[in-house]
């Protein structure tokens, strides 16, 4: 029983974390048809920026609780700096190319950003930690379920994931800009012809996606040692999530995150030797059963 509860809690926490990262990826794909490998780099940038911001905060001796704000500041900073450079500077010139070519463009970006991180932050592991070993991870205290103790920080992850998902769903379906965006997703040419500023839509979408990736990284930073290469590990997991759910689908990302989260948590508890394998096995199985993921649109006839 305890084990089962542990799987459930771990699965939900892990799913929330995955969702925060994957939802930005699926949003960008849905709107721009770019499967952005550099999303992993933005995640890593968020984590490294969080280390710098939070540690600077601690070093000033300010109230430790403020370090949470610093995590958010780091994510916003990464989005505001890198989204314009990447989208306006590079991707904008690539629209209309083959989807696979666009993947490769973002792969090149990924390589560049990996080394950028090494140049700025070095190659040694970093930690979000104040001079007195304070860290946002332990600041919030703990909670107990069925005799197991968890840090409240995990609840924060779940909360952020739910808020992010609901906010995006609301923005897409209830606001004017969101509805225009849905029109762009449906048919880019027609939307442009109707006077929708598609370029601006793309830019805003990319910035939001980048922010979510960076936020995922920033929220992860206090829980792990922040190392180079963390982006490579995450992006392939995020791919699994969005592919399972159906590329470009918001509910798909949520379902995909839950599936991957639960599968991985179950594997860790019951069969640790298949932990990684299980996630990709599920990804392959879903693709085999439903080639375009669980939430996918209908085919268009050619002739």
């Amino acid at each position, binding site marked *: 029983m305890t084990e089962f509860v542990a799987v459930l809690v771990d699965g939900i926490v892990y799913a929330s974390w995955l969702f925060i990262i994957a939802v930005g990826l699926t949003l960008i794909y849905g709107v721009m048809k770019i499967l952005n490998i550099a999303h992993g780099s933005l995640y890593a940038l968020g984590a490294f920026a969080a280390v710098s911001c939070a540690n600077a905060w601690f070093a000033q001796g300010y109230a430790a609780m403020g370090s949470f704000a610093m995590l958010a500041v780091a994510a916003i900073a990464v989005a505001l700096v890198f989204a314009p450079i990447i989208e306006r500077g590079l991707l904008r010139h690539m629209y209309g190319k083959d989807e696979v070519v666009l993947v490769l463009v973002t792969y090149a970006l990924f*390589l560049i950003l990996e080394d950028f991180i090494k140049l700025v932050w070095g190659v040694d592991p970093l930690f979000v930690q104040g001079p007195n070993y304070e860290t946002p991870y332990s600041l919030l205290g703990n909670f107990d379920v069925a005799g197991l103790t968890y840090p409240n920080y995990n609840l924060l992850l779940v909360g952020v994931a739910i808020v992010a998902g609901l906010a995006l769903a609301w923005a897409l379906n209830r606001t004017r800009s969101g509805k225009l965006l849905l029109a762009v997703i449906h048919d880019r040419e027609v939307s442009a012809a109707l006077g929708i500023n598609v370029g601006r839509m793309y830019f805003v979408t990319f910035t939001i996606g980048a922010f979510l990736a960076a936020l995922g990284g920033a929220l992860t930073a206090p829980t792990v040692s922040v190392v180079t290469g963390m982006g490579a590990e995450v992006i392939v997991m995020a791919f699994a999530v969005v592919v399972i759910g159906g590329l470009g689908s918001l509910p798909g990302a949520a379902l995909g995150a839950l599936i991957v989260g639960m599968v991985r948590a179950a594997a860790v508890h019951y069969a640790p030797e298949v932990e990684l394998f299980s996630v990709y096995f599920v990804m392959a199985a879903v693709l085999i059963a439903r080639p375009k993921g669980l939430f996918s649109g209908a085919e268009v006839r050619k002739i």
Partner: protein
Amino acid sequence: MTRDRTVLALLVVVAVLLAAGPFLPRWMISLFNVSMGYGIVVLGMMLLMRTGLVSFGHGLYYCLGAYAAGMIDQIWNVSDMLAMIGGGIVVTAVVSTILGFLLSKYREIFFAMLSLAFSMILYGLLVKSASLGSTDGFNVAAKTLAGMDITGKGLRLTVYSVTVVVMGIAALLLHRYLASHRGRLAGAIRDNELRVEYMGASVRATVHVNYVISAVLAGIGGALMAINIGHIDPEMTYWPQSGEFVFIAILSGTASVFAPLGGALVFETVRSFAYEYSPNTWQMVLGITMLVVMIFLPGGLWSLFTRKKVAA
């Protein structure tokens, strides 16, 4: 029929490389060995790309080829170089034939993603296989070549020579295949699958065959790399490795079998020098190179050589 200049050029290249072997410095032999191993893998990527497919999981076969080469020694105490390469071929042929039944239905991003999933499944298995060294992998050594002892001082040169010959054969066979009626179907499928079916050829069967060929080439490359480097680990099927193969294929272009071979050499040269002089920015150099090639040379580096002909 005009004489096929590519065949002639290939024979000349192989002959020159073999003759030059004994006089080449150590570092150059190493560079060539790695380049040729990669080159053979990328020959397979080229065939897939000609068919209109990009695999983000070809590391699967590269890794399988290498582990097959290493494991026939572990299991049966076989350390003959040809047997090791043969092991790589058999294993990759069998696995790709099975997976091909599924993958031949997939296109574009979905083909890339399902390939990725399969390669990551192998990664997930290998990192947890204690008997295969988990993330550390294990050492591999070829001791004989068709029964002759090759250990000792001459090993490096022997591996080099065998690699040259294998590369020559692989490139020659692929070239002949591409020029054949079956091979020409690759481009037709990339351009218009519907028409291919309406001309009476099976798109799925052709994609399947090409997939198996590309997988076997990756397996040969992996086996050679295992013998050459003497060590294998699960990173060979981690996604950035697969990405690297795609990278070289894009860099090279797909117009001739020389493109992937030359592209692999350029890539490996740039990487070894960049890595030596600036270990923390070599990926950045590669990324920028890739962007420049994609933006200014959509046909790859090879198009530098063929531009005049196209214009004429």
